């Protein structure tokens, strides 16, 4: 059995590998964005995840979400955990099968102390409270806004601030447009890339100090 870490040595320095593999990711939402983000992050070497989702895999999800037909009906958090472990069997993955509210999120942040929080949920109000609460607690957050439709990936923006990033076209809601694999996957990949940037920026800063 190979060690995933040895694969990473082809792509990163030892310091970078250490930082990436020790980063604790809190992923809220394991659907179109979340399953794709996790897939990309685990391949990049991230190996410490807390996955949150209240849904189960539906066949209609297979248009864009990284699940398989035989996983129909399974809790998304569990199905995703199994899929990630197929890529890196030594990843440490906690799962929470729950529709979380503000209070739950505060408790999870305090208990788990994640390094980066990824917002990958459907609902606008949930996006908003994840953004507000994570910043209040001084955590880094990567959000998405505007992932639906097709043919306009050139409108995807990356809005960066202190401790936050928002990725998406900022306009197209699933109320008016359908969530389709190409654009959803593009936004998810950019969210994952921003997580990597945040983590590797920390490595660079430490070196300068």
């Amino acid at each position, binding site marked *: 059995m190979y060690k995933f870490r040895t694969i990473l040595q082809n792509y990163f320095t030892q310091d970078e590998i250490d930082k990436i593999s020790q980063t604790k990711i809190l992923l809220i*939402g394991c*659907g*179109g*964005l*979340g399953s794709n983000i996790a897939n990309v992050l685990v391949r990049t070497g991230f190996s410490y995840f807390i996955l949150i989702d209240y849904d189960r895999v539906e066949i209609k999800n297979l248009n864009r979400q990284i699940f398989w037909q035989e996983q129909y009906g399974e809790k998304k958090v569990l199905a995703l955990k199994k899929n990630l472990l197929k890529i890196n069997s030594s990843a440490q993955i906690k799962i929470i099968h729950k529709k979380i509210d503000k209070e739950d999120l505060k408790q999870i942040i305090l208990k788990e102390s994640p390094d980066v929080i990824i*917002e*990958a*949920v*459907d*609902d*606008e*109000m949930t*996006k*908003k409270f994840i*953004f*507000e609460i994570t*910043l*209040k607690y001084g955590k880094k957050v990567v*959000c*998405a*806004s*505007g*992932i*639906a439709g097709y043919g306009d990936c050139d409108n995807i923006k990356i*809005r960066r*601030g*202190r*401790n936050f990033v*928002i990725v*998406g076209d*900022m*306009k*197209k*809601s*699933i*109320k008016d447009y359908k*969530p389709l694999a190409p654009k*959803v996957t593009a936004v998810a990949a950019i969210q994952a890339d921003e997580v990597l940037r945040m983590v590797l920026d920390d490595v660079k800063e430490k070196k300068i100090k």
Partner: protein
Amino acid sequence: MKLNGKEIKNKNIKTLMDIIVLYNYDIKNIAILVNDHVVKKKQWKSYRLSENDEIEIIGFVGGG
């Protein structure tokens, strides 16, 4: 003051709510930061802005 990175000047802007109204933001799905700090919705009406404030208004649309 700056709104989303751009300098804005308007004597009528005194509170966050003035900006929301003037720039036609939908109050339902936005979050606001002033100088990197979250300002909650219930404070938007009373929050007095000063000249050097940097305001970020982030709108969220559904889909994940």
